[in-house]
Structure formats: structure tokens, C-alpha cells
């Protein structure tokens, strides 16, 4: 499909929400985009809301200003993510709205890519039951939800072998976020097609990543109708993750009850057995009443003195990797359906496609123009002009 800005069909191929998506990916406010294309903020707002339609020249300028092809702005046939869906972000206070908008936009791009791939490939059927909990602190509902999910998924007692694969087997789309958005912790949201979990690539810690994945699973299972971001909601997801990974009935008897040197050896061994961090196990031991608050706090100080708050000792250094999209792309290439076709069908920038379908977090900082403002949000779209000018047509 060869189309250029000169193509007469372009004026009719513009959807305001696609401009919003591109602007969020670029990490820009409306006023900042307006300045970049030398138009008013009101004009940008009107284009995004659909109140006004940009001219062909406007579209070309927006495409150049944002680092996307004009075709990026073409409307999608269907809305994959319902209006009003807000992802579950942690630490809302420490993450700017701009960074969250950018992270969510990246998640939407991942949904677009999965949707394009799913036209050619049968992906696992979505099987994430809703086990809603009440927004109250006093019940054991998060723990019950975790036990219920283990039962519904038919998981035997014992450790979870591979969290990311377990999620994928039940239809959850798991991707790594872009390195440039790594200030945003892992997050999740539900799309009409399939639920999405976006993992933070900067953590590089097998044990913490597993807890993150279980935490996001907790949101998907318990909080489909809950207002994201509150302390209570986050605590519930942590409690879900703790029970899902280390069921009380199985670990209560083996967690240490006092913190001698032997206790640290036990924690180190439990860490490898259950695949969760020592910090998570200490938190678990306190939650289950095996150790007191004072013992917990002292243990945290000891752990910090050993430098383990940053980097705990652990045998596993590789992190869990997603396989659903990477395997699908491999399969399609074997069937002579090249990546370029998928990029074209998903209508996303090529380098974002590669990041989304990668098995490992991609380090591609040299691809990006680092023009961060004080917010620390860097565009995911703009490419270094020295290497490559933004393309105005699909090849």
C-alpha cells in the first residue's frame, strides 16, 4: 500500500483520537504540539475533539512535528479500548499526568499491534475471571480472590512456575514498556480484545518482576470496576499477589519467626523456591503474624545495610519474557507474512512495533531524540534526523 501526503484521500483519513494518541506518545501537551506546528492550542484541541478538520497541509505538519506518517492519523475501524478505561498505575503522586498519558498510549499501541497480528494468528482464548472485591480494608477478599483464581485456573498447590507464561496462557497480553517510559511502574488495563499487562523493563529483577505481574493480575481480576490508583486498591493488589504467589496455607509454617542468621538462610532458600524477593517474604511473614512489626523493621534495616534493598542476592538473573507476540511474528514470517505488512496493518511506527513484539526489553536509546523537558518525558516517536528523516509514506 503506497500512499503519500499528496494522496487526495488523505483529508478524509483523519481521526482526532489518533492525533491525541500520537501527541501522548510524543509526550507533548496540546500547547506544546501547537507551538511545534505553529498553530494555536485551540486549533489542536478542535482537531482532537473532532470539532474541526485539519487541512492536508496541517496533517503533513502534524506528522512531521510528531514523527509519524500521515497515515497514523487515519481512523481505526473499531475502538479496541472502551471510553473511560483508566489503567491501574501505581504511585500516582510520583508520576506526572504526561508520563501516564504516554504510558497508556504505548499500551494502546500494543493493543493495536496485537489486534493486527490476531487477524492472522489464533492467540490463546481470554480466560481472566472477574472476582470483584469491595473497596473496604477489613475483609480477606483479596486473599480469597487469589485462592479462587488458583482454583478456577486449576493450578496445583506450590510455587507458580512462570508468571508471564501463566498470564499468556489465559489470554493476557504481556509486553515490556518502552525504556523511555520506565519511570512508570508496571501497569495494566482491560481492552475489549484482551487484558493487557505492561511490565517495567528497568527493574531487571526476576523476583520483583514476578510480583509485579501477579499484582497486575490482581487488578485485572478484582478491580474491573474500581477507581484505579488509591492506596487501598494498590494494597489489595499486593495482598492478592502475595497470596497468589505464596499461599498462606503453604508458607505460614516455613517462614521464620525470629531473625537470626539462620532466618536469612531460610529466606534465601524460600526466595528461590517460591520465586519472590526476600523483601516480599519478610512482608509476608509480618502480614501472617510470623514476625512482629519491630522484627520486620529491624530486618528491613539489616537488609538495607547489606545493600540488598537495591539488589538482593538471588540465583536467577534472567527475567521472565513474554512470548505471545514474538512467537506469532516468527510464525507469520515463516508463513511469508513479513513484519512490514504487520506494521502497515497495525499503523504504528516501526520501532514501536519492534519494542512491543520483543521478547526482551529493547535498549534503543540511540534511536530517539532526547529532548526531555523538566517532566522527564521523552518522545517515543521522534527519530534522530541525522540517521533518518520521518517517512511520509509507507514502503
Amino acid at each position, binding site marked *: 500500500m503506497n500512499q503519500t501526503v499528496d494522496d487526495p484521500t488523505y483529508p478524509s483519513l483523519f481521526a482526532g483520537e489518533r492525533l491525541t494518541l500520537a501527541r501522548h506518545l510524543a509526550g507533548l501537551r496540546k500547547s506544546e504540539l501547537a507551538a511545534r506546528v505553529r498553530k494555536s492550542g485551540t486549533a489542536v484541541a478542535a482537531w482532537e475533539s473532532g470539532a474541526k478538520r485539519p487541512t492536508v497541509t496541517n496533517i503533513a505538519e502534524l506528522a512531521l512535528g510528531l514523527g509519524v506518517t500521515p497515515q497514523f492519523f487515519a481512523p481505526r475501524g473499531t475502538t479496541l479500548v472502551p471510553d473511560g478505561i483508566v489503567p491501574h498505575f501505581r504511585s500516582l503522586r510520583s508520576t506526572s499526568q504526561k508520563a501516564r498519558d504516554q504510558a497508556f498510549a504505548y499500551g494502546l499501541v500494543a493493543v493495536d499491534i496485537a489486534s493486527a497480528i490476531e487477524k492472522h494468528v489464533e492467540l490463546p482464548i481470554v480466560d481472566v475471571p472477574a472476582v470483584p472485591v469491595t473497596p473496604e480494608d477489613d475483609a480477606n477478599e483479596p486473599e480469597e480472590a487469589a485462592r479462587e483464581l488458583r482454583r478456577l485456573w486449576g493450578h496445583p498447590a506450590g510455587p507458580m*512456575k512462570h508468571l508471564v*507464561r501463566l498470564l499468556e496462557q489465559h489470554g493476557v497480553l504481556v509486553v515490556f514498556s518502552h525504556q523511555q517510559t520506565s519511570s512508570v511502574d508496571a501497569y495494566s488495563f482491560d481492552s475489549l480484545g484482551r487484558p493487557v499487562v505492561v511490565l517495567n523493563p528497568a527493574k531487571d529483577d526476576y523476583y520483583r518482576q514476578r510480583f509485579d505481574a501477579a499484582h497486575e493480575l490482581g487488578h485485572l481480576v478484582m478491580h474491573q470496576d474500581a477507581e484505579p490508583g488509591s492506596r487501598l486498591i494498590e494494597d489489595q493488589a499486593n495482598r492478592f499477589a502475595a497470596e497468589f504467589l505464596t499461599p498462606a496455607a503453604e508458607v505460614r509454617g516455613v517462614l521464620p519467626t525470629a531473625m537470626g542468621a539462620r532466618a536469612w538462610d531460610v529466606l534465601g532458600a524460600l526466595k528461590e523456591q517460591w520465586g519472590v524477593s526476600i523483601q516480599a517474604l519478610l512482608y509476608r511473614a509480618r502480614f501472617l503474624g510470623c514476625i512482629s512489626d519491630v522484627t520486620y523493621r529491624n530486618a528491613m534495616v539489616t537488609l*538495607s545495610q547489606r545493600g540488598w534493598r*537495591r539488589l538482593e542476592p*538471588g540465583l536467577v538473573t534472567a527475567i521472565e519474557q513474554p512470548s505471545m507476540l514474538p512467537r506469532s511474528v516468527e*510464525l*507469520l514470517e515463516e*508463513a511469508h507474512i513479513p513484519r512490514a505488512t504487520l506494521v502497515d496493518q497495525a499503523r504504528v511506527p516501526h520501532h514501536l512495533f519492534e519494542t512491543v513484539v520483543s521478547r526482551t526489553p529493547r535498549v534503543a536509546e540511540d534511536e530517539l531524540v532526547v529532548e526531555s523537558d523538566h517532566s522527564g518525558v521523552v518522545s517515543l516517536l521522534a527519530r534522530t534526523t541525522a540517521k533518518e528523516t520521518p517517512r511520509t509514506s509507507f514502503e
Partner: protein
Amino acid sequence: MPRVKPGTVIRSNLNGSNGWSYRGMRFITHSVQPGDVNHIDWAQESKTKKAVARQQLSSPAIPTLFDNILTPAQLAELAAQDALPKVGLPTFVLVHALDRDSGDRELVIGHSRYNEDDGAPWNWHDSLLTAHKPETTEQPLPNRTVAPSPVAPDVPVRLRQPAADRKAQ
């Protein structure tokens, strides 16, 4: 000991001090007389060793999920202990000593502390030669026969019919 992939430990000297780095952390060497590991006066050592002992907080640690029950004072204490250097990478010191007569060796790794105050020369340190012997206790170490692993087969996906036909052609 955990296995380390080849090529992941790289030479990383700091000024004139021998050093290596691994996963974003550097280790530099320092020799002492036998028995002096706990009596180093970093204030009298080279500029490099002083800088390492005075490593300042350069960025806060990624907040963990487990900080929320700590008091502000405890959090501040933890943050201070998370201190990172302005010597490029978080840098630890590998201290070695050899008694030529007896052949006794010492090999200690730690986070050095600038002890101008005549205090301890270490925030923490650990001997690499004296293996920690487990204390005897009734509580057994859990067995690890069912340990989780980051290795797993790919999730099953298959081509839809038209694409499969295309492959068959």
C-alpha cells in the same frame, strides 16, 4: 556461588585503581596489612579511595512495595543507607591482605565509610573466604525441587486458515 555469564564482568578502573564492573556496580581493589581490615583510615588514603568512601546519594532507590509501613524517620534512614556514589557507578571495595610468612589470606568486600570521625571504616563488609556455616537449628531449609524458572515453552499460537494456506503454497 551464582554463575556469571561470560563477558558481563568488564574492566572498570577508577582513576588509577584497579576495578571491574558487573551489572552496574564497580569493585575496586585495596591492599592492607594482615589484620588491618577493620582499621583502615580512609581519610589517609588516595583521593580515589576517599571519594569511594564518601559516595553520596545520587538517586533514590526505586520505591519498593514494602516501604509503606515504615515511619518517615525509618524511611530517611533507609534512604541514607541506599547512598550511591558520584564516582560514576556504585563502587565497592575489595580489600586483600597476605601474610607472607604464614600464607594466611584475607579477602573482604564492603561498602567503605569515610571515617574521619575515627569510626568504623565500613558501612558493611563481608569476608569472601570464610563461608557462612549454617547454624544448626530445628528449622530445615526448604527443598527446591519445584523451583520456578524463567525458562518456559512459548505460549501456543497457530496460524489462521488463510495464512496457513499461504504457507502451504
